[in-house]
């Protein structure tokens, strides 16, 4: 059995190699637009956030791929969980994620999000992000360099284009599961006080 | 004959009080009211019967003896005095059961003496008689002022006496000088010859007269005693002082002035004296917190306004002066009666008390009186002030105009302060009882303020007539001395 880094690599590649799903032409067109324009929430949740500024500025220039920052979750398509995730941060990430509008994608950076990384025995840090939020793409490394982040983005774009990046649907479908896990670490009385939005939202104006 | 009645009746009544008081407990009061009512009736009948300028001339041993002239002008004053005195007596009658004065017979004596003296001042055409009535009015006023015998009242009486004495010395000195140079005490004779006197003598006599009367007509530097007297005296008596006594002095002062100096040599001086008086009085009243003193300052201001109006020495202004005299007499009378109603329960006259008083009727009446005093349109006060200011504007005395308006503004400041106190929102604890009779008096006074304000034309002609008569020196001389 592979351990550590090798195992992370396996997770990464396993996701990438799944088969194509069918999509009609409207979906294809829309996915193409979504692929071309990715707004990333400017929210540094862990130490990996330090790698994001070079990714977006002159040196690596993510904007040439249509990737740019957005300040608020309302406008963002992608949230990057950059590294270890303490309970306190997790709560904010969940709220932010739920405030983003569909379709939305989650990119997880660093070993900590995969299996706890160097915080594997910390009482205060979650070990497996996908138990709490659906992850579209892991970028491993501690920390991943901007090159790998860009590579992750390109892979994400590819998935979006193929209509495979559907974590947000997964989240809606398996909400009970995610919520159970979230409550397990964040406590029963835990917010988000507005519950899961799409249950309660009223349609229309 | 009637003019002597105006003087003789109250005078006689005054002397007859010891006798009348034996007739019964209430006899004195009722007879007094009756007597005054009859005088009022007489005056009214005279007013209705005669429309000519001179109503009556009565001479006893002319030209050196006593003579009275009842002209339209003096009739107006007599009417006003008798009316106010009647109302006063009625008011006293209504509140007498609860708040009678101690030693009532003396009080009635003084009251009627005061009336007689005031009317006498207005009617006399003889300078020595004027002096005599001057003294009678003064003495009864001193005693009335000190009547309640509290420390303040005694102080005020004493002050009144002292200043009155000084005033009469000056007046007497003036009379002596006049007699020395003219050889007669008859006003007409003096008036004829006064112009011919050397300038220095004229100046001296004028100055002495001015100082003598100045104390009594409450003109600026000589009116320092007024506030103390008003504060010390009871509000009822104050109503008389500001309603009757001052008006009588004012009238006689300007009567003499018009006779002696028809060309108006001192007009400018007197005008500015009046203007300054008004301004000073109003400014001084600005911070006053004692109601009686405050109204005293207001009286000073209003009297100064009348002073200015008379000093203008033309018909319109004198007409305006009569309007203001009426307006002020009625309104101040009303205000002091209201204060008297307040005084029944408590002597404290601090303005804070107004916040506590729970009597809408009294308040409305006070509002009416105050608004009239401020010269708000629809009240008679406005008519007088408007006419006066109009004639000031026409004469081009802009400085004086502005002076009067500024003084009015300052007056408005403290009157509206009082109104603000009365409109104070909060619990009101102090009930003031006003009996039906008292209410009638208030209502009649208030209504007359309003009616005269809305329909001033009803008396305007009469007043103009009076003004013409007062200003006509030659007619007066002709009347007295004969053509």
């Amino acid at each position, binding site marked *: 059995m592979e351990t550590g880094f090798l195992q992370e690599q396996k997770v990464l590649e396993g996701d990438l190699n799944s088969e194509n799903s069918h999509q009609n032409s409207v979906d294809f067109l829309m996915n193409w637009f979504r692929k071309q324009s990715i707004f990333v929430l400017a929210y540094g949740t862990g130490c990996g956030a330090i790698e994001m500024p070079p990714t977006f500025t002159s040196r690596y220039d993510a904007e040439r791929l249509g990737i740019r920052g957005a300040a608020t979750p309302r406008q963002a398509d992608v949230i990057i969980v950059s590294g270890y995730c303490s309970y306190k941060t997790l709560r904010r990430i969940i709220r932010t994620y739920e405030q983003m509008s569909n379709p939305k994608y989650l990119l997880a950076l660093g070993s900590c999000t995969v299996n706890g990384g160097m915080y594997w025995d910390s009482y205060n840090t979650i070990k497996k992000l996908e138990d709490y939020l659906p992850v579209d793409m892991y970028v491993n490394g501690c920390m991943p360099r901007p090159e790998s982040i860009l590579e992750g983005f390109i892979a994400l774009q590819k998935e979006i284009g193929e209509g495979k990046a559907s974590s947000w649907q997964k989240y809606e479908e398996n909400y009970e599961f995610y919520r159970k896990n979230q409550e397990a670490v964040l406590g029963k009385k835990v917010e988000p006080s507005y519950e899961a939005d799409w249950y309660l*939202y009223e349609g229309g104006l | 004959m009637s003019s002597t009645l105006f003087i003789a009746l109250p005078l006689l009544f005054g002397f007859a009080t010891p006798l009348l008081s034996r007739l019964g407990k209430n006899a004195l009061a009722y007879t007094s009211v009756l007597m005054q009512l009859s005088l009022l009736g007489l005056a009214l009948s005279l007013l209705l019967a005669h429309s000519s300028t001179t109503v009556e001339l009565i001479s006893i041993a002319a030209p050196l003896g006593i003579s009275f002239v009842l002209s339209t002008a003096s009739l107006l004053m007599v009417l006003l005095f008798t009316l106010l005195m009647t109302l006063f007596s009625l008011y006293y009658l209504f509140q007498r059961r609860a708040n009678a004065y101690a030693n009532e017979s003396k009080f009635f004596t003084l009251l009627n003496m005061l009336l007689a003296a005031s009317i006498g001042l207005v009617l006399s055409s003889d300078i020595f008689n004027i002096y005599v009535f001057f003294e009678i009015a003064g003495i009864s006023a001193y005693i009335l002022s000190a009547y309640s015998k509290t420390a303040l009242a005694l102080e005020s009486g004493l002050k009144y006496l002292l200043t009155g004495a000084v005033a009469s010395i000056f007046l007497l000195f003036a009379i002596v000088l006049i007699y020395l140079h003219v050889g007669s005490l008859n006003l007409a004779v003096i008036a004829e010859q006064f112009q011919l006197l050397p300038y220095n003598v004229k100046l001296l006599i004028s100055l002495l007269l001015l100082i003598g009367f100045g104390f009594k007509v409450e003109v600026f530097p000589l009116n320092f005693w007024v506030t103390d007297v008003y504060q010390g005296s009871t509000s009822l008596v104050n109503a008389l002082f500001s309603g009757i006594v001052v008006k009588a002095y004012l009238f006689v002062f300007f009567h003499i002035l018009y006779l002696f100096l028809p060309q108006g040599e001192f007009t400018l001086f007197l005008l500015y004296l009046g203007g300054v008086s008004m301004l000073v009085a109003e400014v001084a009243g600005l911070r006053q917190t004692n109601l009686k003193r405050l109204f005293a300052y207001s009286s000073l201001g209003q009297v100064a306004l009348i002073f200015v109006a008379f000093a203008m020495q033309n018909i319109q202004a004198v007409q305006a002066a009569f309007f203001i005299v009426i307006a002020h007499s009625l309104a101040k009378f009303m205000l002091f009666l209201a204060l008297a109603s307040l005084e029944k329960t408590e002597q404290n006259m601090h303005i804070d008390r107004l916040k506590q008083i729970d009597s809408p009727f009294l308040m409305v009446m006070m509002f009416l009186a105050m608004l009239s005093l401020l010269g708000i349109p629809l009240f008679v006060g406005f008519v007088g002030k408007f006419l006066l200011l109009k004639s000031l504007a026409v004469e081009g005395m802009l400085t004086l105009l502005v002076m009067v308006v500024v003084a009015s503004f300052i007056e408005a400041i403290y009157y509206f302060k009082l109104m603000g106190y009365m409109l104070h929102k909060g619990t009101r604890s102090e009930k003031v009882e006003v009996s039906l009779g008292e209410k009638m008096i208030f209502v009649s006074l208030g209504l007359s303020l309003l009616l005269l304000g809305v329909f001033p034309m009803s008396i305007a002609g009469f007043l103009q007539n009076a003004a013409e008569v007062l200003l006509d020196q030659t007619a007066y001389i002709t009347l007295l001395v004969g053509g």
Partner: protein
Amino acid sequence: MEFSLYGLSDIVLSLKVTALANFFALLIVLSTLTVLFIAPNYRLKRSFYLLFTLLVASLFLIVYAHDYLLFFIGWEVMSISTYFLLSFTLSKEALHKYILFAMASALSLFVAILLLYSTQHSFLYEDAKQSYLAMSDGVQQLFTLFMLIAIFIKLGTIGFHYWLVDAYEESHNLFTPFLSAMLSKMGLYALILFVANITQATYVLAVMGLLTTIIATFKAIEQESIKRLLAYSSIAQLGYIVTVLSVADGMGGALYHALIHTLVKLLLFINIAGVIYVTQKEKLSDLGGLIYKLPQSFVFLLIGIIVLAGMPPLGGFASKFMIYTALLDAKYLLLLAGVMFSSASAFIYVYKLIYGIYLGHPTHKNLEEVKEVPWTFLAPQYLLASLLVIIGTFPGLVIPYINRILGELNLTLLSFETIQTLITSYAQYNGFVVMGAFGGIFVLVLMMFMLLRSKAKKPKNRFDIAYCAEEPNEATHLHYGYSMGQELKRVGLIHLIAKNSSKYFYDFLAKQMQYFSEVVRKIYSGNLLLNFNIAVLFLIILLLWSLK
């Protein structure tokens, strides 16, 4: 109708029905009716209605009087009846402040009309011009000074507005619309008479008007109390009119704006009265988030503020346009820039008003339970709002009426073609097209927008906002904008306006007056000997001076 006063033949009085008088009388009728419409919601004493009747009567007297004496009498009665009307709710200080300014206004008007009388011995409007010309230069200036003081106090022009703000704030909610819509208009009426009949004090009006608009606008931005804010807004709006009256052809714009301002201030104050009626709160900081509770009121306030800000396509733009082109015509370019500047600044307080009351979050629990205001409040608002919309669509509608007034005052007429267009020498615009285009585009965009696939979803919870990933709750301070504009104080020029107040000047004046009074009172302290000396000395000095 002419008659004489007091049986004195030298004072001729006159009442006359003129187009100008009718214009203002119409405004009086409109204001009175709309204000009385909301009256059943309040329990008022009978004396209130009595005084109110007296007030309205005095207003009619002012409007229909054709000579300055009757005008003055109306003016005084108006001041006094307003005093007693205000006394129902005002604090002692505010009341005293009001009446002192009102008396100052009345007395200076008195002096002015007496000065006018002194030359030609007539109070009639027709003779006013001649009387004015017959004065000497100094007296002319004095007259203008007194007249303008009287008018400015009623208008609340900056420097003379000390009484106005408190009176508006504390007056009864029923009475405030009337105060703003009508009583200040009487000052305007006096000013129009002054400008039309006597002289156009160009520079004074221009400077005072501009200062008023700018300073009052920035003062309004500072306020936290709704009624204070609107009071300053009233001052500023009247400032526009004062400014435009300073130019030769400004009368049309002034009248137009007077009409619009009356309508909009009635609308706004009635709206506010409704809000205060249901919430019992008067501060912007105590309100908020009422839009879904009072949707109709919100729409009316929106219409009100759009008009107040002078935005197309509603009526506010028409009057602003008239004012601008009048100033442009007279080549008062910097003045125009100043007026436009203050008009642009007005956006802040206008937004602050609507935000503080209706938008944002409720600041109190009980705000979440209020219901829509009673129909008695809504009915007049429907009327006023529809009037404003109609005027916005057909801006030329009132031009013929204004022209009638202008013709009567011998001024240049405004050009008029159709009721849809507003034409001035510099430009024209078609209100119907503007309104139609806006409506059409709005509906089209809205329809296309609603057809889009993306579903609009509404959060159940008002706390679901993007709040930096935090979870706000009841205790979180979310109603931010009611204190809007505070940061402007950090700008030097605006700080200067915010810091200074006419209060300091009047306080100083009052202090000096009291000090002076203290000194003068010493005379009456009762020290006889001293007084005798003073008296005699004074008399002698005065006598010598007067005889010299």
